[in-house]
C-alpha cells in the first residue's frame, strides 16, 4: 500500500505581529514635491499598539507558508460526511472572474446588467427544474439561512390562514442546524427519535393541530433515503401542516428524483455542496430556497423575472417575508453554480449523482466487516460506521487523527448522534476508484494497527505539522486576539 501522507520540510511561521519591525514598510512613495499639509488632529486616529509594520516579502512569505499548512480538496481526498466536498472544476473560477460578472456593482441599473440578471434568472429556473419546485429565491447566504428562510415562509403561510400553530417536528436523523432554524423562526421543536428510516407511525404519533411543519433531511444523515416520504407528506398535509426538506444531501438525488414531486413543500439547496462551489473555509456559501406555488407569494424578494425580451428585478409581493440579504445574495457563488450546471448538463448532473452513490456504496462494501456498520441498508451518497469493533481501546477520534497521518482529511465524526462513535464518510462522485481504494486500504490498515499497536492511534497524528490540539483548553480558555507579552 502506498501511504500518501509523509513527513517533509514544513516551515514555521510567526504571527504577523511578531514579524514587525519599527519603520518597515511594504510600499515606497516618490519624494514629496509639494508643500506638506498636516491633517487636522480630529481626522487622525491614535496609535494602535503593536500594529505590525512589514515589508512586502514578509507578508507574501507569511501567507504562502500558512497556505502550505492547509489541506483542501485540491490537495487530496476530503470525505467529510454531510458536507459534499466534491472537487470544484476550475472552469467555474474562470467564469466567476470574467470582468463583466465579477466587477459589477449590485446597484447598477437593470438595462446595464442584463447578463448577470439573465444568469440569475436561468439559475432560478434550473434549480426549480432540478428540484421540482414552482419558484426559487436565490437570496439566502448559505444553508442555515436557507432553512430559516423556509421556516419563515412556512410561518407566513400559516399566519395568512389565521393558523397559530407553534410546533415543528424534527426527526433525530435530520441535520443538526434544523432545530436552531425552526427555533429562530419562533417555533418549539419536538424531536422524533427516529431509528433509521422515518415511519408514518412515528410522524402520526406526534402530528396534531399544534404542528406547523415537519422538517426532514432526505436522504437523512445516515445516508438513507426516506422511503415513506410520500405517505408522510400526505399525512402532514391532511392534518394542516407543511413539510420542509433540508436539501443539503441533494447530491444523492439530483437528476434522479425531485423533492417537489415527493410532496415536500419547501427545500433549501446548498450551492456550495451540490453545485461545486468552494467551501470549508467559512464561506461564502449560497442557500437558495425552492417552494410550491402555494408558498411562492411569501418568498423573500426581489427575484429576477423575464418578459421574454429582457430581465428585471420583480416588484416584491406584499405578503413576502421581506429581504434575507442586502442586494441579491452571494452572487459570485451563483455564477459558479450556474457554470457547473451548464457545463455538466442534465445527463452530467444525473451521472454525478449515480457516481456519488456508487462511490459511497463501494466504500461501504470494502469496509463492512472491518468496521461496525450499524445500519445495513444500502446507503445513498454517504455511509456511517461506528467505532464499536475498533480494538485496543481506540475510539473514533483516534481513528480520525490516524487518518491524518495517512494523508486524508478525516471524515465527519460523532455525527449523526443516533450512532454512538459515528464516522460518516461521503466520498462524492469526483474520486476515482484508485483514490477510494487507497483510502479504504488506509482505513483497513488502521483497524489492524488498533489491534496490534494501538499506541499508533493514541499518539496520532505524528506526521502533521502539529500533534493533537488541546480542544478542551481552546474551548474553555480561548485566546481570541493577539496580545503583546511583557
Amino acid at each position, binding site marked *: 500500500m502506498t501511504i500518501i501522507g509523509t513527513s517533509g520540510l514544513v516551515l514555521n511561521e510567526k504571527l504577523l505581529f511578531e514579524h514587525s519591525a519599527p519603520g518597515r514598510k511594504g510600499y515606497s512613495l516618490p519624494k514629496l514635491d509639494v508643500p506638506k499639509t498636516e491633517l487636522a488632529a480630529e481626522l487622525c486616529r491614535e496609535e494602535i499598539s503593536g500594529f505590525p509594520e512589514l515589508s512586502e516579502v514578509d507578508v507574501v512569505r507569511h501567507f504562502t507558508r500558512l497556505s502550505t499548512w492547509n489541506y483542501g480538496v485540491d490537495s487530496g481526498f476530503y470525505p467529510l460526511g454531510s458536507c459534499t466536498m466534491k472537487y470544484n472544476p476550475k472552469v467555474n473560477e474562470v467564469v466567476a472572474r470574467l470582468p463583466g460578472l465579477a466587477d459589477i456593482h449590485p446597484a447598477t441599473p437593470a438595462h446595464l446588467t442584463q447578463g448577470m440578471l439573465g444568469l440569475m434568472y436561468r439559475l432560478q429556473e434550473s434549480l426549480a427544474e432540478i428540484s421540482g419546485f414552482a419558484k426559487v429565491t436565490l437570496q439566502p447566504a448559505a444553508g442555515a439561512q436557507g432553512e430559516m428562510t423556509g421556516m419563515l415562509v412556512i410561518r407566513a403561510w400559516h399566519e395568512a390562514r389565521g393558523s397559530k400553530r407553534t410546533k415543528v417536528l424534527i426527526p433525530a436523523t435530520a441535520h443538526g442546524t434544523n432545530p436552531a432554524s425552526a427555533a429562530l423562526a419562533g417555533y418549539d421543536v419536538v424531536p422524533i427519535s427516529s431509528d433509521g428510516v422515518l415511519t408514518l407511525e412515528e410522524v402520526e404519533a406526534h402530528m396534531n393541530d399544534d404542528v406547523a411543519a415537519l422538517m426532514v433531511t432526505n436522504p437523512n444523515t445516515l445516508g438513507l433515503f426516506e422511503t415513506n416520504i410520500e405517505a408522510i407528506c400526505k399525512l402532514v398535509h391532511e392534518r394542516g401542516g407543511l413539510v420542509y426538506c433540508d436539501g443539503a444531501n441533494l447530491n444523492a438525488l439530483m437528476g434522479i428524483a425531485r423533492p417537489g414531486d415527493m410532496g415536500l413543500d419547501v427545500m433549501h439547496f446548498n450551492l456550495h455542496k451540490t453545485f461545486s462551489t468552494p467551501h470549508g473555509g467559512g464561506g461564502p456559501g449560497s442557500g437558495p430556497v425552492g417552494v410550491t406555488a402555494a408558498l411562492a407569494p411569501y418568498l423573500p424578494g426581489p427575484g429576477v423575472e423575464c418578459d421574454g425580451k429582457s430581465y428585471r428585478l420583480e416588484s416584491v409581493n406584499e405578503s413576502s417575508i421581506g429581504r434575507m440579504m442586502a442586494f441579491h445574495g452571494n452572487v459570485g457563488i451563483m455564477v459558479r453554480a450556474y457554470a457547473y450546471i451548464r457545463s455538466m448538463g442534465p445527463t452530467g448532473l444525473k451521472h454525478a449523482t449515480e457516481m456519488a452513490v456508487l462511490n459511497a456504496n463501494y466504500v461501504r462494501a470494502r469496509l463492512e466487516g472491518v468496521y461496525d456498520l450499524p445500519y445495513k441498508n444500502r446507503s445513498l451518497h454517504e455511509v456511517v460506521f461506528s467505532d464499536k469493533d475498533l480494538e485496543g481501546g481506540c475510539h473514533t477520534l483516534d481513528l480520525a487523527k490516524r487518518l491524518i497521518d495517512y494523508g486524508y482529511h478525516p471524515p465527519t465524526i*460523532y455525527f449523526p448522534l443516533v450512532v*454512538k462513535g459515528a464516522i460518516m464518510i461521503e466520498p462524492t462522485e469526483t474520486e476515482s476508484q484508485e483514490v477510494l481504494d487507497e483510502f479504504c486500504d488506509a482505513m483497513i490498515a488502521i483497524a489492524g494497527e488498533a489491534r496490534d499497536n494501538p499506541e499508533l492511534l493514541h499518539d496520532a497524528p505524528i506526521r502533521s505539522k502539529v500533534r493533537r490540539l488541546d480542544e478542551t483548553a481552546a474551548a*474553555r480558555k480561548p485566546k481570541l486576539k493577539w496580545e503583546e507579552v511583557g
Partner: protein
Amino acid sequence: MDFPEELKYTEEHEWVMVEADLAIVGISDFAQEALGDVVFAELPEVGTVLEAGKAFGVVESVKAVSDVYAPVSGTVEEINTDLLDAPEIINTSPYEDGWMIKIRMADAKAADNLMDAEAYQAHIDEEG
C-alpha cells in the same frame, strides 16, 4: 463506572438525590464519560418552573451539545454557579461538586418512579 446506590436515575442519564421535597440533579458518570470534556454548562434561573421530561439546561463538550432534562416537575430552588466558570467539575465529580440544580418538587414522591442504580446499569447495558 460508578452509580451510587442512594441515587435515582433517568433514561436520559440524569441522577437525582432526594432530600424531603428537594431533588438535587446532575448527570451520571456514564453521561460525563460519553460527553467527554465538558466546556460549557447552561443552567436555568432560580425560580424557573420545570416540567418533568423537559429540557432545563445544556451541557456542551468538545464532542457534542446535549440538553439536560428535568427528572421531576417543580421549581428551581438553587443552581450550582461554580459550574458556570468551571464546567469541568461535571467531569471530575459528577455526583458531588458537579451537581447542577436543586428542584423543589411539586410532588415529593415524583422521584420514586425513577430507576435505581441496578435498573440504570441494566438500561446502559441494553443501550450498548
